[in-house]
């Protein structure tokens, strides 16, 4: 079972390169006032009122469980990530770590407070973000996030296992002579 995991994992770089290229193409955003409500400006990918301003969704997947959904519209892009969670410990750690980020979504600016259903975490980039920040830097941020999140979760997993082992050792020492 352990070796199956190693055999199934693909190189990360082509996956990230594909996502970088797709994001660069998708983040061509411009201001677009809401057509439904006067004087309002909504991210169309969230409002979903007009099919005309929504573009095709793209899913880039590395495996059936690990994928990125990129939904574009005229003034906003929603990027949802589904991470690889091999076992239950992974699932718990992913959920906790990403919930930690999502609760501080204002500080991340482009993070969405709740992930799109079916995915672990979502980003929402609007035309205003693209105007205030460099587009290539935004793409860099998201790709760096994807690159580092896996290693962060596996190091948390190792830390949990190590702590568990130490605690169990200490506890069981009381039962040995």
């Amino acid at each position: 079972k352990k070796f199956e995991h190693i055999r199934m994992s693909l190189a990360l770089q082509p996956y990230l390169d594909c996502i970088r290229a797709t994001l660069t193409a998708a983040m061509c955003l411009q201001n677009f006032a809401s057509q439904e409500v006067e004087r309002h400006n909504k991210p169309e990918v969230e409002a979903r009122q007009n099919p005309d301003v929504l573009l095709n969704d793209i899913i880039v997947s590395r495996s059936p469980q690990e994928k990125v959904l990129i939904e574009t519209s005229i003034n906003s892009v929603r990027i949802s990530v589904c991470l690889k969670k091999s076992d239950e410990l992974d699932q718990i750690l992913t959920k906790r770590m990403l919930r930690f980020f999502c609760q501080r979504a204002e500080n991340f600016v482009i993070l969405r407070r709740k992930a799109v259903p079916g995915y672990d975490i979502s980003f929402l980039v609007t035309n205003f973000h693209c105007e205030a920040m460099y587009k290539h830097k935004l793409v860099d941020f998201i790709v760096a996030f994807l690159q580092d999140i896996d290693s962060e979760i596996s190091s948390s997993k190792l830390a949990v296992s190590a702590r568990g082992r130490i605690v169990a050792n200490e506890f069981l020492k009381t039962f040995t002579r």
Partner: protein
Amino acid sequence: FWNRPHMSQATISQRQAAIQQALNSGNTVAALNVVLTNPPFGLTDENLRTADRKAVSLALSQFKKDADIQNAIANLDADQLDILMKYIYAGLSLGEYSKELLNWHAIVLTKAGNGSIVRTIADKVNTL
């Protein structure tokens, strides 16, 4: 153009059979030609769409070497490269053959440029 009839189950099965035949005889370039001629744009039936995408992903995954891929796309024009890019993303959304499709993506991107990705995202009529 707007009155183009949707392809039926029969045409999709014919396409799948033609691709399978080309692959059985080991001729991957012929399979690619089947893929790029008369693709079923704008299919609404999800089952047919998935079947077509799976057949195309299979065909693309049979190209084992980078040199083979580069030779195959060397003589394609812009429209065919767009069709190819759309199929690459369609295959990536299914989740199988990711490694081969990501490889194809990198090579076709160098040839076709970022515009092909923009057209995949923006073209809502000729979806694959």
